[in-house]
């Protein structure tokens, strides 16, 4: 894709903006339309755009499938962990009031943590889906390091 110079330049400019917009949607979710799922999809879209413009190898170098798997799992654990924290602090599962001494602050903290968990898992899953569809074979997912380097070698040569 060496001749797509316009796309690459525009992409380089756009991708950070998309990421920032994702974060905006993320933190806006507490008050209005938005939230972790939408933000996760936007963040995932930024990563997918990067992959489309700069190739599979570069994308795998930036965000490896192994990392995505980790991120997806951590997101769910963060969500569930926030819920369990409510139980441990003598509330109900997913009760945010007990997270901090002030129940209103607790509600804020709870929803932010939950939405962060959603963001992590959704963005990782969306990106992993794109990787899976683009992978030539299963080996890409199981052993990203070897593959990414050999592919980028091929690209350079």
């Amino acid at each position, binding site marked *: 894709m060496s001749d797509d110079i316009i796309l690459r330049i525009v992409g380089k400019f756009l991708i950070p903006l998309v990421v920032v917009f994702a974060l905006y949607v993320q933190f806006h979710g507490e008050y209005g339309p938005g939230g972790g799922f939408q933000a996760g999809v936007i963040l995932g879209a930024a990563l997918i755009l990067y992959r489309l413009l700069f190739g599979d190898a570069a994308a795998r170098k930036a965000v490896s499938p192994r990392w995505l*798997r*980790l991120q*997806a*799992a*951590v997101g*769910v*654990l963060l969500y*569930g*962990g926030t*819920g*369990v924290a*409510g*139980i441990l602090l*003598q*509330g*109900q*599962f*997913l*009760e*945010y*009031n007990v997270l901090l001494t002030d129940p209103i602050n607790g509600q804020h903290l709870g929803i932010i943590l939950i939405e962060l968990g959603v963001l992590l898992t959704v963005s990782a899953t969306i990106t992993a889906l794109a990787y899976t569809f683009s992978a030539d074979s*299963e080996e890409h997912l*199981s052993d990203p390091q070897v593959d990414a380097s050999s592919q980028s070698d091929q690209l350079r040569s």
Partner: protein
Amino acid sequence: MIAQHAQILVVILPLLCAPLVLLLGKSRIAVWFTVGVLSVNALLTWWLLLQVLTIGTLRYSLGNWPAPWGIEYRLDPLGALLQVMIASIAAVMAPFLRKLLAEEIGSSRQYAALVAFILLTAGLLGIVATGDAFNVFVFLEISSLSTYALIAIADKRDALLASFRYLIVGTIGATFFLIGIGLVYILTGTLNMDDLAVRLPEVSHTNTTQIALIFVTIGIAIKAAIWPLHAWLIPCYSYAPRGIVAFLAALSTKVALYALARFLFGVFPLADMPIGSVLLEILQLLAIAAMLIGSAAAIAHSNVRAVLAYSSVAQIGYITLGLALATSAGVTAAIIHMFNHAFIKGSLFMCIAILATGSGKHTLESLKGLGHRMPIVGIALLIGGFSLVGVPLTSGFISKWFLITALVQAEKWIWIVAVLLSSVMSIIYVWKIVEAVFDKSDDKQVRSYDLSVDIPIVLLAAVSLYIGINSSALVSTAEQASKWLLGMP
């Protein structure tokens, strides 16, 4: 503290165990961790069942938001019984999953299979645990998605196709269910099942309610593989990895049938609805068709897994018939058979999985004579087969006894003939398998195999024998569950 939260812990323990296992990856700790979590979970469900039977329905408000505004988990006798069934079978099967899958799934994917297995368990437990209609949909999707992955994971062409077919059909089912839920939500403004049961009678005569009931019933019927919506089930049970199919056949359709029972009797005011009785009549007819056609197809097939899959279609017919009678005795029979059939089919598919290890074939020919080489598996297969037929002293007999009693009470004489006919047909297909497995003429080499995989089979078969001999605990629980379900004091 655990006592107070046990109801929610049953669902979130496996739900959080899944990502942890993903993080642990291929290490051996992952398996033992899973076994530990699922065992604790099974103990919790037993304890919850005892609680429900003594105290009555348990309720839990998520986030301390009171129902109907917040999501409420509600555990009744039927739910508690099914949770015991799901969690126990999952805990019994988890330690041996790796050995059972070793032949079909490469080691790089086995941990993924384990994760999907745990998620499936969580999804099934969730459907049963929740008292919120939309939550049922979410957990239905969790369990379905992990099922699609589990079927496709073996990387076999047939399995991929089966999984894709199930994906399409299952998604249509889930969509239908969601449309139904959406309609009642628009009508009543609530998603809490108890609250729906209070508000729906006011609008029971509107067309929207009738259509919602139809959508919900068809959606769940697809998931439950009620004839003629069973087509996805046959390839799935025939081509999914052997170790997985035992779990699927044991539980997934049963949980969908639970959801059907819950929506028919616990949410919609069937008696007041114009189409209520018609729907039950149709379900009875479909159940009869399932029994006869399923059994006939089972006789016709020579692939053992297809035989058992069609037999499942027939057995789902028995359960549906019990439910569709909508009498206390009928629902009791359905609940008893739901429980029994899970253990019977689980153990039968497990037996076939072990018998087919090595050869990888599931034709009657390839299983010839193996019963002599693997006596424990052979005997378990015999017990399972007898249970399917309904021989006295096995759990299948108890199921049939209660079903026929219920039919007698309802004075459905023709249905009784159909049930008996289907039982006779089941003798034929069970005999086909038993005859092949215990064929003396064939002299196959003794294949050495890991005896530890017999443990889950022995346990599952023992349950079905025990219930055949002493069914009082199950029957009284089922009676209590059906009384609760039909809203009788």
